[in-house]
């Protein structure tokens, strides 16, 4: 890959060196090597940048949150920084790219080294529209110590670091530590108690990190509560739709369909649950689910577990 991609660099003191990195101790300021869009890094304002990191072994919930954060922040014009690791990092990049947003991957090896291999496609996508940077020269394979070291770069590049999921202890918490040392803001997404990858983030919140529910919470940290991001002269910038389109309403439901629909929407995913909570016998519950599925109110997964669709019941 190094033969086809031109590698650029940004040296401390050089014009365009990201100002956020100047906050690092002089001896720890990296010379950045990068591939992709150099202009993304040049003069990158930490105030319009958010770092999203988290566990490699993320839960489905964490992945969903990270992807949505990446997508919505990108829609708001924020540059999303992450580490190209599998799990949360990849989801955050993917979310940002899904709406044509800006995203920067700070990688542990040389900027031309695709690691992990399973993210090769994502690497290509970021290379096409974003940027990948590293403090290491091209061709250097990542080594264990590199991952911890690059966390300080991710923390320094942005004013806010959001940890989506992290176990105890974990590399993501090191990013949070780095951010605090640099006087940056740290946010964390709350997780379910008892889930290993939520322990670190829940502890961050207890220790005073900002609780992050959605992109709005991150924007509030960057611009102040309720303040809209300043409009910038960028006609290409994707804009968030003012309001999500209202869900369609379906045909009216009688008894017991209305009740069964509510139960499924409330998390009853099996015939057992619907029958017990809805005080129906198994046959009534099964028949009701089949009818609701045909009407489009509920859907079954491959095994036959139920969930509600976006279709809303009329009053």
């Amino acid at each position, binding site marked *: 890959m190094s033969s086809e991609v031109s590698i650029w660099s940004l040296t401390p003191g050089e014009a365009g060196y990201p100002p956020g990195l100047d906050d690092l101790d002089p001896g720890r300021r990296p010379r950045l090597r990068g591939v992709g869009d150099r202009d993304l890094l040049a003069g990158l304002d930490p105030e319009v940048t958010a770092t999203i990191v988290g566990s490699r072994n993320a839960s489905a919930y964490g992945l969903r949150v990270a992807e949505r954060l990446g997508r919505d922040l990108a829609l708001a014009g924020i540059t999303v920084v992450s580490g190209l690791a599998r799990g949360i990092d990849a989801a955050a990049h993917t979310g940002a790219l899904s709406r044509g947003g800006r995203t920067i991957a700070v990688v542990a090896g040389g900027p031309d080294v695709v690691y992990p291999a399973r993210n090769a496609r994502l690497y290509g996508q970021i290379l096409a529209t974003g940027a990948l940077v590293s403090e290491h020269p091209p061709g250097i394979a990542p080594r264990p110590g590199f991952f911890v070291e690059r966390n300080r770069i991710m923390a320094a590049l942005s004013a806010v670091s959001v940890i989506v999921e992290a176990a105890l202890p974990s590399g993501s918490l090191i990013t949070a530590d780095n951010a605090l040392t640099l006087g940056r803001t740290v946010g964390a997404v709350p997780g379910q108690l*008892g889930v290993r990858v939520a322990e670190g983030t829940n502890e961050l919140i207890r220790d005073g990190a900002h609780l992050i529910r959605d992109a709005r919470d991150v924007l509030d940290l960057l611009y102040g509560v309720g303040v809209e991001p300043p409009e910038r002269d960028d006609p290409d910038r994707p804009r968030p739709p003012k309001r999500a389109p209202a869900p369609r309403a379906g045909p009216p439901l009688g008894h017991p369909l209305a009740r069964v629909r509510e139960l499924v929407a409330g998390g009853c995913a099996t015939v057992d649950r619907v029958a017990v909570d809805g005080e129906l016998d198994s046959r009534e519950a099964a028949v009701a689910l089949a009818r609701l599925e045909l009407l489009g109110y509920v859907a079954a997964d491959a095994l*036959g577990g139920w969930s509600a669709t976006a279709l809303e019941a009329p009053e």
Partner: protein
Amino acid sequence: MHAIARTFTLLGVDAHEVRVEADVRSGLPGFALVGLPDAAVRESRERVRAALVNSGFQFPQQRITANLAPADLRKAGPGFDLAIAAAVIAATGQLPDGALDDIALAGELALDGAIRAVPGTMAMAEAARRAGVRKIAVPAACGPEAALVAAGRVVPVERLEQLRELGTDGEPGAPQPVRPALGVNGASPPDLADLRGQPGLRRALEVAAAGGHSILISGPPGAGKSMAARRLPSILPPLGPLEVVEAAKVASACGRSVEYAVAGRRPFRSPHHTISSAGLIGGGNPPRPGEITLAHHGVLFLDELPEFNRGALEALRQPLEEGAVRLARARYSLELPCRFQLVAAANPCPCGSGPRSGQCTCDPASVRAYEAKLTGALADRIDISAVVEQPDLNSFREPGEGSAAVRDRVLAARERAQERDQGPANAELPAERIAIGAEAERLLADVGLAIGLSGRGRERTIRLARTLADLHGREQITIDDVEEALTLRRREG
């Protein structure tokens, strides 16, 4: 001097006749055994020599040649001991002339002359009857099971010296066939009453039992998947008279007790997921029956279905389709029966907690791969998919409905199906032979358009609807039956 003794050898679950020819002539003393004996059969010489001497017979100080015919069939196991000993004794004139003319013998010898049980005496007795052999001497312990298929022809023998009594008044009388013992070993199969709450799972089991449908139960560990599966036999109809004989023959051939089968109990087999495909479908040389044959007329339970070796699951396809497995060997091929109901259980995802639980730490790609394995493996042979969650036990202190009541409904449904003279159970019935009304036809068409329903999915739904109508005692399939069937059916991956 020369004598012939008849015996039988087991191939799979069927017996084949073998003739033991013994020739005793003067020469350097020795005992040669020919006719493709395996190691256990060759060792038979030492057992025969010791047992003969210890039973008061003379072991000839002459040249003995024993031949097992047909010579091209590989002979395995110790079951030839008794026939070899009898042939040697007869060839040395120690038995009256013609004593072995109309009798077959099978059994393993102990050095002191006692006769030990061998597997497959039921199949041997049946083969003896078919071959028109008037009597078959079997180890006394095996007498009752052999008498199941050859009443009056069986001579139970305990010791080698009893050969002298054959054909005399002292000959042991024919044993009583095995009787259906109530509560075999005091244990009755686990009862469905233990399953509390979970009405959907109970219903799925009842439908599976009523129509003979195979079922996949998925849910997190501790949700009661295998507990439910183990209770399926308790709501199945008892074995019919022919099924009893077939199931007992399999048990006998595998050296297992035939009492369960005689009591009408359906076998329940739950092999561990590390099993090889030879262990599952049968294999080896000579071939031994696998788990699916042991589950003949019963239930094969595959817990942790996706953990099973892919080859083993693939090997299940043809036997599931045909109800029999054919094993080919260089010199012959044989067919083992394996008509069983499949119950599979699986976690909903690799980590076990399930994508909906919020606890799941599986990455989506591995969940997809897992689901693909789950829905791909044997999927076209599974009719019902039941999803379970951990039940809230506090709200169900009451035991559920017991097996007896559920089994009555299942029996009534099966009788209703048989009144139609349809032959196989609903699960095996071609969908085009099931009449559904115009209204149900329209509903299925709507579902096809709105949600998508493959040809197989449609047939599966129709078969399940037929079973539901049978359970409700109706000839006509209603819209509700079809709708419930749509929810019960296993979906395409």
